[in-house]
């Protein structure tokens, strides 16, 4: 029996590493994780509270900071639901039907992930900016998109575009169409089929995608920076406000606002970990 042989005269040692090798590998990985992941996170909170709790609260209560928080919520509040609807529609069409050009469509949906955020901002400036393709027409209609809130929302939508679809497509492909077909054969209409059969199957994957989409929407910097114009209290989102404070050497305020974003990241990671731990099997396809 092979199992027995593996345990005779030292053969077992060749199925794993020696304790020393393990210790070195774990140690090396831990030092790397500490230097690159733990320290930056600790630094954000430590710098934010460097001048005490009072200074921290003052920095956050600043009206311009609050305006930035509000704009961040507006941008995420518009782009996340729209990308959610898109993600569900796209994954329904892609996962439940067979058609030509499917892989091309999936590649196009993934495109915003491989485009630099700065280029994402740039393309909107080239389209809607004063010298852009539609610039003169927009000006004649007195509509401003670039250096205004609509541009920020559009840029946020672009960079967070694939998140929900990407989570749902593999999940729904794995689940197949049998349950939906059964529901239809029992007389359910399309909407009932989706709500009673599909939605319960994908709800955790959906939540997972929304979570990641929201984290990126609230934290996006590069794309938003290009289209924002950096008008204080008007077109500054939280990450942009962090940049301005930092460049003015107002470290406590910069890190105070940054700590709000870092807290959002930590909450996102905890919720994500919780979902993976509790409903890992229902997310399996999307984690593959």
């Amino acid at each position, binding site marked *: 029996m092979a199992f027995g*042989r593996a345990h005779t005269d030292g053969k077992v040692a*060749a*199925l*794993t590493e020696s304790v020393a090798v393990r210790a070195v*590998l*774990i140690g090396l*990985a*831990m030092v*790397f*994780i500490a230097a*690159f*992941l733990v*320290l*930056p*996170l600790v630094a954000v909170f430590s*710098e934010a509270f460097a001048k005490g709790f009072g200074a921290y609260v003052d920095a956050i209560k600043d009206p311009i900071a609050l305006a930035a928080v509000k704009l961040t919520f507006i941008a995420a509040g518009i782009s996340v639901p729209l990308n959610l609807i898109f993600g569900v*529609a*796209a994954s329904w*069409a892609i996962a*439940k*039907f067979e*058609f030509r050009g499917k892989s091309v*469509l999936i590649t*196009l*949906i993934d495109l915003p992930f*491989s485009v*630099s*955020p700065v*280029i994402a901002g*740039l*393309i909107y*400036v*080239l389209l809607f900016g004063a010298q*852009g*393709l539609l610039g003169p027409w927009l000006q004649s209609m007195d509509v401003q998109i670039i250096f205004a809130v609509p541009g920020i929302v559009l840029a946020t*939508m*672009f960079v967070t*575009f694939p998140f929900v679809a990407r989570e749902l497509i593999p999940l729904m492909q794995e689940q197949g169409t049998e349950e939906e*077909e059964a529901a*239809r*054969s029992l*007389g359910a*209409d*399309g909407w009932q089929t989706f709500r009673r059969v599909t939605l319960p199957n994908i709800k955790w994957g959906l939540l997972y995608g929304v979570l*990641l989409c929201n*984290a990126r929407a609230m*934290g996006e*910097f*590069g794309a938003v*920076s*290009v289209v924002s114009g950096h008008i204080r209290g008007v077109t500054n989102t939280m990450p*942009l406000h*962090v940049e301005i404070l930092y460049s003015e050497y107002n470290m406590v305020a910069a890190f105070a606002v*940054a700590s709000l*974003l*870092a807290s959002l*990241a930590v909450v996102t*990671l905890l919720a994500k970990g919780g979902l993976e731990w509790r409903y890992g099997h229902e997310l399996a396809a999307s*984690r*593959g």
Partner: protein
Amino acid sequence: MRPSTANNAPAVFDDNPPARVRRAFWRQPSVLPGFGLTMGFTLFYLGLLVMLPLAALVLKAMDFTGAQIWAAATAPRALAAYRLSFGAALIAAVINLFFGVLVAWILVRYRFPFKRVVDGLVDLPFALPTAVAGIALATLYAPNGWVGRLLDPIGIKVAYTPLGVVVALVFIGLPFVVRTVQPVLQDLNKDVEEAAASLGASRWQTFQRVIAPSIMPAALTGFALAFARALGEYGSVIFIAGNLPMKSEIAPLLIIIKLEQYDYAGAATIGSTMLIASFLLLLPINVLQRWSRLRSAEA
């Protein structure tokens, strides 16, 4: 039993689908509804949000003469920025390839304290806004920062040098390699390793000949994703880079500088160059990865 096709009964059980199931030439018939609606919305949204603006980039670049484009794309400052962006992204991706596989390995194969916390932390670069990561790294690696203070006496300057760019890109790229290699390691069949061991292979030989080839496609995918992300990265880099023209100025920053100077030709050209170059670089990696996956499937 044949289900009745009189009411809304599905055609899927039927060998001869009734005529009302329209046979589109480009899609297979299905009893499920909503294809037209969802596909229509998908294409509309994709076209409006992604394809139209990307077309604007190409159309805008066509406003300029070939000489203008060539001059903007090959200006010394632009060349220096490409060199830094591609070089730093490549170095960072190589570092991530090594540490990413290492972290994935210890997470899958070993037990140690706080393993679940470490596993969750790997995703931090996905979740932490890049500007926050940028100011945190810049503060840590500045000469008077927690890490910079240790490196400064031995003559290593990280912040405000190209090395700082690499540090930021390593941070950003790590999860890509870990998250692509981890599931493959998890699914790896232990039987093969046992077979190798029972045939007398040392642990290192087993790793080299059995484990490494199996995780290679995933590791290369992670490498490619980390590289692509690093190429375009902006937020986490600009705070630590120092942004000196010709020295520590990345290409995405140069695009922004051109835009601020209303040099649309320059911005569009450098942007297009970066897009084309990264596609050209990723193409062979994708081909290599597909080839290696096919090879391992045959073996």
